[in-house]
């Protein structure tokens, strides 16, 4: 059974030629350099938003690009973590690092719960189930008193990191967020290129064979799912601190659709694709924000074009050009 993302893998050689990782390392260094310099030219809050979404997309890509499961409910993890972080920072007065950890842990727990129910299915059924479960979580947050419903949790304090770093100045906050993003990004990369990642790829390519070799696919898929949910939570908690707000938008299913689009646009199953996709999409949204509904229309058009004619995404096409996986 084929799956989304398999197409991408087949476009690049099955055995990574010598120097692949070097290529990726070069790309990584370029990415870091650009991200370090950008806040001095571009509005940093905008950049931080892009970084949070880039992390979210990387986490999502782990699931769809490498495990081959399309989850249409990932917003639940982003938003739930946002709410818990906001509540911890504002109501319990926790410092930002603990608040974000609390949010991330919540997302992990949710990931375990959702994964346990959904992982027995695959393909369309999996997408459908994750969508419906996420919607259930959305309604829970809509009605829970602590979330403030339509108003959201507002005036979340930025706080002082580790007791000495005041996060209110925007540039300081930016570099903290950048550090969080890079940590998450490297974790995803490490996971993919670890023995665990190899097993996942084996399961994706031929599940029956993997079973015959003694692996339990359900367990591996669930672990990948939980990891993906956890990192999504990390993105969500960080976002709540940056914007000092947690709202229903982050748990709504349209957000789940957005992360799918980011990853698709950037390139499913590529390492840098989600980052590129996130930045592209956030930029487009920013410039179209004045025009309200145009954002939705453009997102839809990009979806249609990508699915019909551009399935490898930006980075995927780039990777094919230089014949190295990116």
């Amino acid at each position, binding site marked *: 059974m*084929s*799956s*989304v993302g*398999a*197409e991408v893998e087949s476009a690049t050689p099955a055995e990574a030629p010598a120097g692949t990782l070097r290529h990726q390392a070069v790309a990584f260094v370029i990415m870091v350099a650009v991200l370090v310099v950008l806040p001095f030219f571009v509005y940093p809050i905008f950049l931080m938003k892009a970084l949070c979404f880039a992390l979210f997309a990387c986490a999502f890509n782990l699931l769809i690009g490498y495990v081959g499961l*399309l989850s249409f409910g990932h917003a639940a993890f982003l938003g739930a973590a946002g709410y818990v972080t906001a509540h911890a920072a504002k109501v319990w007065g926790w410092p930002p690092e603990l608040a974000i950890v609390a949010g991330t842990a919540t997302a992990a727990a949710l990931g375990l719960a959702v994964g346990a*129910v*959904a992982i*027995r*299915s695959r*393909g*369309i*059924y999996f*997408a*459908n*189930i994750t*969508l*419906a*479960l996420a*919607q*259930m979580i959305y*309604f*829970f947050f*809509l*009605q829970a008193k602590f979330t403030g419903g339509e108003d959201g949790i507002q005036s979340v304090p930025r706080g002082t990191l580790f007791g000495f770093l005041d996060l209110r100045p925007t540039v300081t906050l930016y570099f903290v967020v950048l550090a969080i993003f890079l940590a998450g990004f490297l974790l995803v990369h490490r996971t993919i290129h670890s023995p665990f990642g190899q097993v996942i790829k084996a399961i994706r390519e031929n599940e029956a064979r993997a079973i015959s070799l003694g692996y339990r696919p359900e367990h591996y898929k669930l672990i990948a799912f939980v990891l993906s949910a956890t990192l999504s939570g990390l993105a969500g908690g960080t976002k709540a601190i940056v914007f000092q707000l947690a709202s229903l938008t982050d748990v709504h*299913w349209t957000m789940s*659709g957005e992360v*799918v689009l980011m990853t*698709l646009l950037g390139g499913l199953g590529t390492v840098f694709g989600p980052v590129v996709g996130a930045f592209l999409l956030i930029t487009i949204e920013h410039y179209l924000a004045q*025009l*309200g*509904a*145009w*954002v*939705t*229309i*453009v*997102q*839809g*058009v*990009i*979806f*249609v074009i990508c*699915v*019909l004619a551009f*399935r490898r995404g930006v980075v995927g096409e780039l990777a094919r050009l230089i014949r190295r996986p990116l």
Partner: protein
Amino acid sequence: MRGNLIVFQFLGIPPQALFGQLLIGLINGSFYALLSLGLSVIFGLLNIINFAHGAQYMMGAFVAYFLLQYAGLGYWWALLLTPVLMAGLGMALERTTLKRLYHLDHLYGLLLTFGFALIIQGVFRHAFGSSGLPYPIPPELAGGRNLGFMFLPNYRAWVIVFSVGVCLATWYVIEWTKLGSYLRAATENPALVRAFGINVPRMITLTYGFGVGLAALAGVLAAPIYQVNPLMGADLIIVVFAVVVIGGMGSIMGSIVTGFALGVVEGLTKVFYPEASNTVIFVIMAIVLLVRPTGLFGRAS
């Protein structure tokens, strides 16, 4: 309503509240049933989850609105013309875009229809804003009758009657006619059916068109009571997905029965435990999945 005084109370809830909400639940269930029927039919043959179903439902309501505004054609014309128009649109869509994805993973079909849903909703939102446009209840169905426990508007009674009719008619066609049997056969083994000389691709196109037509029909039905607005299908469609999962994707009778049943369950929840009324359908879905992963009436995939 001030007429009969029904003295007993059921579990502490006055009968007005109970039966009234049940009736409203049946009305909601009518829409769930109609929409999940369309989705099931499409999924059965194309193996695609038509994410654009909600947007097509919304377009149905808008077409009815346009027919009235610009062509002076009222409700009954809309009921006839809108599904046909929308079915045509649906078929054009399938022919030009969906067809190209059949050789790929079916998830791409989901993503494509999701993209279409965004485009359609965005365009309508841009043109019409997101508060509702009024569509009048047809005068033949205006007014209502006092049932003692509630005042039931005639139009809402019509909604129930009409949807049951359409659902049963569809079920009959699929289960009992020759055309329906070709459809069911093509679902199970398209290659063999093609070998018998039946034009399967055309059947697929027609099926998609039919599903879209059903969605549009639901939209016309909804226009007089739910306010014609671009977002009317957006959140509704997620509930319908859950209904389809519970009923069993691809099962016609399953979708119909589950649609009505879940509408009633939702109505009951509103009476006894209103906070849960939004989530009860999803909770049921989670339970059904744990116990019977293919749904209550579903076939093993």
